């Protein structure tokens, strides 16, 4: 045997805000808990720490401070943590296989909590695959963890609050932001205001970001989007920007402008991670305002599959602040389901947490709505734009398959290879389905890519470890 069999009451996948709180809450109830994350430290995307070799020279930002508190709480708890472990397989009897620095390893558990957050959405345009064009989320990793600028001069585009957060961080780090290009209109922002006021602190932070960007002289182009990016002289990028309508489609009759920069940071909102819940054949529903397909849940984090729970933005974009509470909710519910709490104790503990969660998600969901993709937005994806980056499948090839009769995304995948690369459609799945839905009439009819292992690409060497031929349990011969 090369793998070691570990048993745990609870396995938590993802050490972001929801995962940490779920793990710590469950451990505090006396359950044995294992927390697994691909990163070297806890925090997730929003509370991502700097590498441990780095030291802070400035005062901690709010997010950094919360992250530090979270990591401290985890350290003091009885949770077993496995960082730098990549989970590649999960089964319905709740076995989890991972590879880490010490080789392959697997666990079996009674409750599996999926707290894997979200994936970034990019609505493709010609040139989005060029070097120097990165995602908003990637930019936050550079800025938060490595304190590194994407380029000397950067254009920040897409939609939602992350735009201003990233642009302000670039300015703060001494970089120049050529423009912030926001597909959301001023009116869309105004419509979100009643909910945004529910968190005056976060709203104030946003206002400060905008002020910082404006002081730096950066124009904010509302209701606009990138039409295309072309390589320019001296490794620079020439970005064509054009106004969009209320469905975020390019208005071809409107005047475009060209901006030359070193780097482009682009993101069109977030899509809940469903790779694990799809792989385990949980029931899903499509909720555009929550980011797309989400695993159906009973509002107390239970999915339709026995023993499978969800915490945080994996069940719909609600923001990091809400994810903290949702994680606690997950820890309590699992504690109750595994017999560590009686019904009275559970109710007494869960109600105040639920209340806080609802309060916190108001703000997060308003942000989520600003980031949600209008169904017609993909009409603007041009024929030559690469939709699936792993396999270089263009919009034109996808349309050709639809014209030949493909009516479901898995069929489209088989006919064109879109979604067959190493990312397994995490990047293009939402876009491909939206393009097909223009024909089928709904995202439900278009379907979603069937969840398949491995959850992340891992090498044969990592999975198989060290062995001899005689160690291979070869089954009996096929009939002659």
């Amino acid at each position, binding site marked *: 045997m090369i793998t070691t069999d570990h048993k745990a009451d609870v396995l938590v996948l993802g050490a972001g805000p929801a995962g940490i709180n779920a793990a710590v809450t469950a451990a505090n109830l006396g359950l044995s808990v294992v927390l697994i994350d691909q990163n070297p430290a806890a925090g997730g995307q929003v509370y991502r720490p700097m590498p441990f070799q780095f030291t802070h020279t400035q005062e901690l930002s709010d997010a950094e401070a919360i992250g530090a508190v979270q990591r401290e709480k985890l350290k003091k708890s009885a949770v077993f943590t496995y960082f730098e472990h990549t989970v590649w397989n999960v089964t319905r009897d709740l076995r989890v296989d991972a590879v880490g620095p010490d080789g392959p390893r697997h666990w079996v558990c009674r409750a599996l909590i999926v707290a894997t957050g979200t994936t970034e959405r990019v609505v493709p345009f010609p040139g989005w695959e060029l070097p120097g064009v990165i995602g908003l989320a990637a930019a936050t990793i550079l800025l938060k963890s490595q304190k590194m600028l994407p380029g000397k001069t950067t254009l920040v585009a897409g939609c939602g609050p992350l735009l201003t957060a990233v642009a302000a961080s670039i300015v703060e780090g001494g970089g120049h932001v050529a423009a912030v290009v926001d597909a959301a209109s001023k009116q869309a922002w105004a419509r979100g205001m009643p909910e945004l006021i529910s968190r005056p602190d976060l709203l104030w932070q946003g206002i400060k970001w905008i002020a910082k960007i404006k002081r730096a002289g950066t124009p904010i182009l509302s209701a606009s989007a990138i039409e295309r990016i072309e390589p320019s002289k001296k490794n620079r990028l020439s970005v064509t920007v054009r106004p969009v309508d209320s469905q975020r489609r390019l208005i071809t009759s409107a005047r475009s402008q060209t901006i030359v920069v070193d780097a482009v940071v682009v993101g069109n909102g977030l899509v809940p991670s469903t790779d694990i819940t799809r792989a385990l054949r949980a029931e899903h529903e499509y909720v555009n305002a929550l980011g797309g397909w989400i695993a159906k849940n009973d509002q107390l984090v239970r999915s339709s599959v026995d023993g499978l729970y969800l915490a945080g933005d994996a069940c719909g974009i609600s923001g990091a602040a809400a994810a903290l509470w949702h994680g606690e909710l997950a820890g309590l519910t699992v504690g109750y389901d595994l017999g560590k709490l009686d019904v009275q104790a559970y109710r007494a503990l869960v109600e105040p947490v639920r209340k806080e969660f609802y309060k916190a998600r108001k703000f997060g969901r308003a942000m989520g709505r600003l980031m949600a993709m209008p169904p017609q937005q993909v009409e603007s994806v041009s024929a030559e734009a690469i939709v699936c980056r*792993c396999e270089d499948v263009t919009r034109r090839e996808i349309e050709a398959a639809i014209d*030949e009769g493909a009516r*479901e995304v898995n069929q489209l995948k088989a006919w064109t290879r879109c979604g067959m690369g190493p990312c397994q459609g995490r990047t293009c799945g939402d876009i491909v389905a939206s393009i097909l839905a223009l024909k089928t009439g709904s995202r439900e009819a278009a379907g979603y890519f069937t969840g398949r292992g*491995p959850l992340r*690409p891992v*090498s044969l060497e990592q999975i198989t470890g060290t062995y001899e031929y005689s160690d291979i349990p070869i089954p009996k*011969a096929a*009939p002659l």
Partner: protein
Amino acid sequence: MISADGNVFDTAVIGAGVMGCSTAFHLAQGGMKVAIIDRGLLCREASGVNAGTLTLHMTRASLVPYAIEAWKMWMSAEQWLGAGVLATHAPGLTLAFTEQECTMLEERAAARREFGAKIDILTAAQAFKKEPGLNSKLLKAACCDIDGFATAYLTGRAFRYGLCRQSVEIFEKSPVVAIDRRNGLFEIVTQNAGKLLARRVVLAGGVWIEPMLAWFGVHIPIKTLVNQLIVTERIRPVMRTVMSIANGLLSLKQFGNGTVLIGGGWQGIGNRENNETEAIPENLIGNLRLARFVIPDLSEARIARIWLGLEAETADAMPIIGDVPGVDRAYVVGSAHSGYTSGPFMGKIIAQHILGLQPSMPLFNPARLL
């Protein structure tokens, strides 16, 4: 609903995998008015998710003549079907790493040679010339020139093209809920396409042939195998043959796009009743260890995707192709071992039989299994 122009179909084929599609295609080519019905989409079950191996090594010995004919059909699909599945001709090697496997390899090669497969036994040195990437621990290999692979996921797209050209009417996402006989016709009740009338029916449902035969009160047990498949991301060329091991539990090949497919029939969990499948991690690891042992350069390759497909096996592991016992003008085609390899030809011979022609090769009477 009858057919688009109000007539009765000459034949309705139920089940749109390779066997069903090929049957429908050849019936239409023979002048019949044909409908093909599937509860899902064309070739999206075993026919679209198998390893695509077009080999004689793993074909049951007595099916070798059929597989040779089908191999030619796959290689020339662009001509007769109008669209292809990237069928690629490459030599096939079966490998032995232990003395016991050497014996098995010789026996299995001899059995297939008797049925016309030109399989030669190679020394390790000869095998390395054919396949330089092999593990140096190799003892012996069997080699057949008639081998290769197809890209199975393109099967549905190719057959859709061919069937449309033959004016076969395609009813997808239309599960059959009942079949009645009325005035000498079959009345096929579907969930989404209404009622279809046909003079003949062909059952071509792969592992689902057992419940299909039960519609007519015929009971033939068909076992469901749940095969696991693994594909890597695109990597540099690390092999140029199609490989298996002596007992048949590996299929390994690298496609033109650089991805490497690893299969061989390692079992997962699943059943045909709800069509749910799940990989067994230990069996994935075993299959991967075997592949990496055979071609050590695979170590660096990353796994891109794992999936499963259902394969049918009758009590004698031979196909059922012929008349449904006791039911006039009802036919069945399917449940062939390595059915993808021989599929197009099996469809052709049942079509010849239905058209009243002499099949190019003998059918496989289902009545033997009653």
